[in-house]
C-alpha cells in the first residue's frame, strides 16, 4: 500500500510539473537562444528601415534637385533680365536718343558756360607751403 501511495504522489508531482512546464512559451523552451531577438526579425526590420531611409534620401535628393533646377532657372532669368536692362541702358544713353528727348522737352544749348572753381575745405596748398 505504501508503495502505491508513493507512485501516486510521483504522478501528481509529474502532472504539476508538466502543468508548470506548459505555462512557459514553447519557443523559449525549444530554442537554444531563449531570451534573445530572432535575427531574421532583426534583418527584416533593418531591411525595412534601410528601405525607408533609401526612399527618404532619394526623395530628398529629388527635392533638392528640383530646388537647384529652379534656382538655376531663376539665375538664368535674372541674367537675361540683366542683359536686357543693360541694352535698355545703352539705348537710353545713346546720344541720339538724349538729343531727341531734349528736343521734345524744348531744351536749348547752354551758352556762355561759366565754370565754378571748387575751393576745398582744407587748405592743402597752405599746408605744403
Amino acid at each position, binding site marked *: 500500500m505504501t508503495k502505491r501511495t508513493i507512485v501516486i504522489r510521483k504522478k501528481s508531482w509529474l502532472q504539476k510539473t508538466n502543468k508548470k512546464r506548459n505555462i512557459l512559451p514553447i519557443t523559449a523552451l525549444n530554442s537554444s537562444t531563449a531570451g534573445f531577438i530572432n535575427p531574421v526579425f532583426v534583418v527584416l526590420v533593418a531591411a525595412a528601415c534601410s528601405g525607408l531611409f533609401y526612399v527618404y534620401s532619394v526623395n530628398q535628393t529629388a527635392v533638392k534637385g528640383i530646388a537647384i533646377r529652379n534656382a538655376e532657372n531663376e539665375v538664368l532669368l535674372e541674367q*537675361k533680365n540683366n*542683359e*536686357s536692362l*543693360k*541694352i535698355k541702358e*545703352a*539705348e537710353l*544713353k*545713346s*546720344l*541720339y536718343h538724349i*538729343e531727341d528727348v531734349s528736343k*521734345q*522737352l*524744348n*531744351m*536749348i*544749348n547752354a*551758352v*556762355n558756360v561759366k565754370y565754378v572753381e571748387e575751393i576745398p575745405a582744407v587748405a592743402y596748398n597752405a599746408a605744403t607751403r
Partner: protein
Amino acid sequence: MNKAKIIRRNDPKQKTSEKNWRINILVFFIFFIAIVVVTKLYILQVARHGVYAALAEQQHGHTTQLVAKRGEIFLQDENQPYPVAVNKEMKMVYAVQREMKDMDSSIKALASILGLDEKFLQEKLDDPTDMFEILKNKLSDDEVKKIREAKIAGIYLVGENFRYYPAAELAAQTIGFVGSDGKEQVGRYGLESSWQDKLKGISGMQIQEGDSRGRWIPVSDRNVEAAQDGQNLILTINHTVQFEVEKILKQTMEKFSADSATAIVVDPKTGKILALANQPSFNPNDFSSTDISLFMNPAVSSPYESGSVFKAFTEAIGLDDGKISPNTTYSDTGTVVEAGYSIHNSDLKANGTQTMTQVLEKSLNTGVIYIEKLVGNKNFADYISRFGFGKKTGIDLPGEVPGNIRNLENTNRTINFFTASFGQGISMTPIQLAMAYGALANKGVLMKPQIVDEINYTDGHSEKIQPEEVRQVITESSSKQVSEMLRAVVLNGHGKQADVPGYLVGGKTGTAQVAKTGSKGYEEGVNIGSFAGYAPTNDPKFVIVVKIVNPKGVEWAETSAAPSFGKIMKFLLEYYKVEPTEDPKISPTYKMYQAENTSVASEVTPAAVENAKLDTKTKDDSKKKK
C-alpha cells in the same frame, strides 16, 4: 535484378557503344551550336563592327551643336565702354493651327496686336495640316506683353538671339552688321565682317545616347565639347566724339545739300581713330530695307582726287629734301605750260614774287609745281609713296582700297607730276589723307591707323593693341616747319573758318574736281571740298580730315569743309580739356563765335523759357489724359 545482370553480362559492348553514340551526338550538337553562336558573334562584333556601331550611333546618338555667343563691340566712353553691337534675345510668335479654337477672333486679336493685315494672317493660318506657322519675328516688348495678356489658344512665343545695335545709326558703316549667308549668321561689312573669326567664337558639340523616343539616357556616356564664346572688342572710337562729328556732318550736309560727307579724327601720336563718320548713314537694325550703297565705308573705300589739301605734302617734301625753306621765294606768273597743257592758279592770277608760306596760304598751283621741279620726279614719287599713298593703310576695316598713284610710275611724263603736286591726277582715300597728315603732325612719323584698342577674351584676360609705327617719312624739323606754314594758312589764308580762338590750329583747304566715270576729264559743276589739318600745331593732339561731296551753292572748300573742321576741332579741344595757349581775339573766327553766342543767347528770352515750360506742361497733361 537477375535479368539485368544477365543482359549486362551477355552484351556489355553493345550498350557502351550506344551510350557513346548518343553522347557524341549531343557533344557535337552543342559544339555546333557554340560554333554557330561564336561565328555570329564574330560577324556582329568584329567583322561588321563598324556597320553596326554606326547604325547604333545613328539610332541612339543625339548630337547637339552648342552655339557660341558672339563677341560684343564697345566704344570708348567716360565711365565705362559703351556697347554698340550686342546680342539680344527677341521673341518670335508662332501659331499651332490645330490648337487654335476660335480662328476668326484669334486672327482679329493677333492682327491688332502685331500690326499685321487680317487677310495676311488668314492666308497664313488657312492650312490646318501645317504643324505650325511663324507669324512675326523680333517682337517689341509691348507686343510680347500684349500677346501674353491675350492668352490666345495655340499662340506661342519663343526666344531668338539677334544682333542688336543700341545706338542705331551711330558709326554704322564702321561697325557693319550681321546677316545670314544661307547657313549661319555672319558679319557683313564693317568690323563685324573684318573681325568675324574672333567675334563668332567656336561652336561646341554635345553627344549623348538617347532612347527610342529621343529622350536622353541619363546613365549613358556624354561627350561634351564646350563652346568658346567670341571675343569682345573695345574700339578706339569715342562715343561722344563720334556722335558730335556725325551731328556736325549732318548739319553741313543739310546746309549745302551735299551728296555725302566723311570726317575722320585721329590721334597723330598713336594712330588711334577717335571718330570715323559718314553721312548719310543707316540703321543696322533695319539693314534689309536700306539702300545697299550706304553699307560701304567711303572713308576707306572711296578714293578721290584730293586737290589742294595735297599741297602740304609737296611743301613738306621740298623742305625735307632741303630744296626750299618757308621763306624761299619764286616768281608767280600765273601759268605753267608743260607738254602742251597750261596750268593756272585757281584764282587765275599772277601774284609775282611769293614765299613758300604764301604758296600754301594762297594755294598757288604754280608754287607747288616750282617745288616739284626742284625735288625731281623720281624723288617726288618716292616721297609720295613713303607718305603711304598708293598702298593700303592696313586699317582693320573691310573694303579698303589703295588709291591710285600709277600716273607717277613713268618719270618722263612730267605733266603728271605737276598735277600731282596739287593733288590732281592721283587719288587717295580719306583715311590715307588723315594718316599722312598725321605724319606731318607726329614729327614726321607715319603711324598705322588703329581702330581696335583692346580685345577681351572669354577667360577674363585682355589684350591691349599697341600703336604701330610705319616709318619716318620726313624729319622732325621739316614737320615743325610745315606745321607753322599750315598755321599761317588758317591765320592768313583760305583756312580762316577752320580756326578755333585760343588755339594753334593748322590746316589746308582743297577743292577738287571729280573725275568722270568711264571717260576722261572732269564732271562739270561737281566738286569735292576737303579740309585737313591738326591742332595744336606745336603739340598736335588731333588730326581731322573733312570731305564734303558735291556741296551746292558753294564753290570752295573754304566755305563748306573748313567751318565743319573748325566746329569739330573746337569741340575736341574743349571736350579733352586742352588748355588754350593763344589770345582768342587774334583768331579770325573770334568775332564769328562771339556773334553766334550772342544770337543763341538772344533767343533765350524769359518769354521763350515760359513758352517752353507751357509746351512741356501741355504735353505732360495730354500724356496723363491718355
